[in-house]
């Protein structure tokens, strides 16, 4: 069976969920071979093996952390050359896309980004994309070279499928380009303790209607009662009420949770681009004409400061 390279997104050895989803999708096309780079790479092996990786190629070197993107491209290219895979899959993170982009140029292969599903086809893997702010669904494939595909988080349910997961050291020689962009400093983001926005099953977002940073705890309290992640519209982010990393939309994160709750958000096309594929959509807005109501499964026309706290209380009561 053909091998499929899967790029591993991990933090010090802790594999992030989108990678496990990738392994699930990769098994539809072939046998997953994982590539894990940087500090803690070897510690990813057991989680990857549990989810179907037949082999885990690992490499660590200071270059991976000290310089931007290119050292990782060199490593993935080395893996590509040693495996000759049927496809190379990446998570659709900023870094995943950039590594994929450069690899595609190097190996002369087509690239598809932001796939939301993947299947085996007669002429290679077929990717489903959700485009134009999710107004259209397309099916596409790579027609020249080895398919390079990036996949959005929440595109598949993670399935366990124990495999060998044999760890092998990957030989990497860095290109001249590798040290071109220095990472002078890196400040890790403080954890909120809440689920990761793109991975969460429930997302509660606040918009301009929240009215100020001092009111965001209303949104956070609902999120916490549901075990949800907190998102924000660009209006709320631009006003400085919530960090940009929480922005949902075209220039923020795309989320595709089971449940999306929008509070005080009008539903502009750029916001919809980031949440329209959510399974169930709920909105609270005092304007009955707000476009967000065109999308909802359930909408409440009302003041969020009345509706949301009441909902939070009710959730807490019902959950005991």
């Amino acid at each position, binding site marked *: 069976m053909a091998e499929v390279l899967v790029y591993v997104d991990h933090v010090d050895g802790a594999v992030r969920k989108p990678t496990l989803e990738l392994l699930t999708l990769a098994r539809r096309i072939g046998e997953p071979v994982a590539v894990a780079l940087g500090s803690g790479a070897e510690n990813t092996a057991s989680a990857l093996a549990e989810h179907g990786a037949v082999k885990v190629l690992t490499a660590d070197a200071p270059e991976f952390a000290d310089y931007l993107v290119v050292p990782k491209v060199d490593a993935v290219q080395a893996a590509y050359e040693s495996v000759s895979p049927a496809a190379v899959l990446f998570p659709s993170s900023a870094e995943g896309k950039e590594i994929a982009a450069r690899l595609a140029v190097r190996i002369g292969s*087509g690239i598809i980004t932001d796939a939301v599903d993947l299947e085996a086809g007669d002429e290679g893997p077929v990717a489903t994309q959700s485009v134009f702010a999710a107004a259209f669904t397309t099916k596409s494939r790579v027609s020249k070279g080895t398919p390079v595909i990036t996949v959005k988080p929440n595109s598949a349910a993670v399935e366990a499928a124990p495999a060998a997961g044999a760890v092998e050291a990957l030989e990497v020689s860095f290109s001249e380009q590798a040290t*071109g*962009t220095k990472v002078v400093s890196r400040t890790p983001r403080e954890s909120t303790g809440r689920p990761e926005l793109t991975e969460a099953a429930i997302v509660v977002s606040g918009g301009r209607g929240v009215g100020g940073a001092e009111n965001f705890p209303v949104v956070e309290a609902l999120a916490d009662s549901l075990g949800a992640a907190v998102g924000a519209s660009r209006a709320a982010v631009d006003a400085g009420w919530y960090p940009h990393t929480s922005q949902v939309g075209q220039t923020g994160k795309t989320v595709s949770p089971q449940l999306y709750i929008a509070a005080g958000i009008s539903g502009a096309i750029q916001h919809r681009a980031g949440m329209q594929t959510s399974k169930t959509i709920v909105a609270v807005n005092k304007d009955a004409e707000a476009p967000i109501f065109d999308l909802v499964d359930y909408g409440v026309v009302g003041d969020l400061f009345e509706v949301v706290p009441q909902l939070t209380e009710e959730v807490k009561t019902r959950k005991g």
Partner: protein
Amino acid sequence: MSLRIVVCVKYVPDATGDRRFADDLTVDRDEVDGLLSELDEYAVEQALQIADEADDAEITVLTVGPEDAKDALRKALSMGADKAVHVEDDDLHGTDALGTSLVLAKAIEKTGYDLVVCGMASTDGTMGVLPAMLAERLGVPQVSLLSEVSVEDGTVKGRRDGDTATEQLEARLPAVVSVTDQSGEARYPSFKGIMAAKKKPVESWDLEDLEIEADEVGLEGAWTAVDGATERPARTAGTIVKDEGEGGKQLAEFLAGQKFI
């Protein structure tokens, strides 16, 4: 010594219009008005600010696109860019990311550059891959997704706000930079700017000028193929209630029914 800045700008269908696909599964550009991708306005703005800080700088805006794409160039010129290059050729219809990066890289090399500035992603394809591809093709550093950028003494510095960390980056010129919508509001063209733009030079190049064969680009030469595009079915109308004091409880009832609580 003059700092040569090339800003890559894309002409895209207006996102607030009814965007759709044509019969050949490329973007239908006839039905919807086009404009300069809003995210590329940020790139033009940062280029203008970098040029202001430099002793001497020249900004060229570059687009690969159909006839109408000149509108995007005009907008960038009216914001303050100095000159424009339009790569236009019937054989470019249907070009994918790999092909676009090839054409842009050749045009950038032909223009000459010290710094290439791109947006973070186009508002139509939204791939966010072109800047990395350009850096790869040009063989220069990539300093991408910056929310803050500056150039001094032949070095570009910037801040990248990632998912898990904020990074300070640094590279020697020549380099390819991309900037996010957090980099600072783009200016509006002034009346003077709009008038001045009419006199600024717009050069038109075709594939032959760039020594690219027709079969390397376009729908025929594409590295990817779109086999189908279907409109997402409209969502079935949901339940909408007016809050009469029980809105939160009614919502909780709905969520419980859906097994979220």
